[in-house]
């Protein structure tokens, strides 16, 4: 068995750090670059399908239904509707937000696609489907072409949206 005599009182070696690291040069593509540049200005930018008229945010550059390029840029509202949500109570490695917190799908006004957002400034047991929320942005000097520019969403003072208005987006 192992010789347990060690230098500086350190015990026998039992583990080995074997990190795996990959360095990428990432490009989000042209359509998502529009979205990301919007974030750097404190705006949500989407794109509209010329055929069905749906507005995607963030846009991938084409309409998944019609298979045509989405070339028209559309600026969306700063407010939207919670279509569905999840309250996170479980800690995990690398967690940066204090638990419990709310992770929600937010359908921005004018958009036909929801995206995930953090909901704050509300007790976790008061979140509900249909709740109207508004984006809170970082200070203007800290805006970057990244979703980190959106600090979180918080309840707006409007009444809840009708189920009919977002039932297609669940």
């Amino acid at each position, binding site marked *: 068995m192992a010789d347990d005599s060690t230098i500086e009182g350190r015990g*026998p070696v039992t583990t080995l750090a074997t990190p795996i690291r990959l360095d990428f040069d990432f490009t989000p593509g042209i359509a998502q670059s529009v979205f990301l540049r919007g974030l750097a200005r404190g705006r949500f930018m989407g794109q509209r399908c010329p055929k069905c008229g749906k507005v995607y945010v963030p846009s991938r550059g084409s309409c998944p239904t019609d298979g045509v390029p989405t070339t028209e840029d559309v600026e969306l509202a700063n407010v939207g509707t919670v279509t569905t949500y999840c309250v996170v109570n479980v800690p995990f490695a690398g967690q940066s937000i204090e638990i419990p917190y709310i992770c929600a799908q937010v359908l921005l006004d004018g958009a036909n696609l929801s995206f995930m957002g953090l909901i704050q400034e509300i007790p976790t047991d008061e979140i509900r489907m249909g709740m109207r929320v508004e984006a809170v942005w970082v200070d203007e000097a800290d805006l970057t072409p990244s979703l980190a520019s959106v600090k979180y969403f918080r309840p707006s003072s409007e009444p809840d949206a009708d189920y009919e208005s977002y039932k297609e987006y669940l």
Partner: protein
Amino acid sequence: MAEHEALHASHVLEYPYSRSVGPVIGAFLTGLREGRLTGVRGAGGSVIVPPTEYDPTTGEDTGELVEVGPGGVVETWAWVEQPLPKQPLDHPFAWALIRLDGADTALLHVVDAGDPGSIATGDRVTVRFRPEADRVGSMADIEAFVPEGSA
């Protein structure tokens, strides 16, 4: 930049794995940290370096730990003219299979030979450890092997 040009950014994906090494490789790594090279006795009395928990030919448990080296013989080698950023040395070196004195198998490591004319199969080399304070229990505790007599 025009509004309809794609952005670029560097992106690093890193998984900070750590693995459990077990009693035999653990003893080998502990030995490296202490500046010793260790093998293990396998079936038929052969000495395996780096040590394994099981004999690779019979599958039986291996036996006692045996100190080997610090010198050895280059069995084969390949020259690296332009080292990559994460390779062990930042100047040209040889990857080599080194059969340490007292061992029956070869260990893969680096020979800091200077130039490819200064290394040949059958050459004697000896270990160069990192300074004791820098050793952590890893293969990198061996900085390199060097031609015997040049250390």
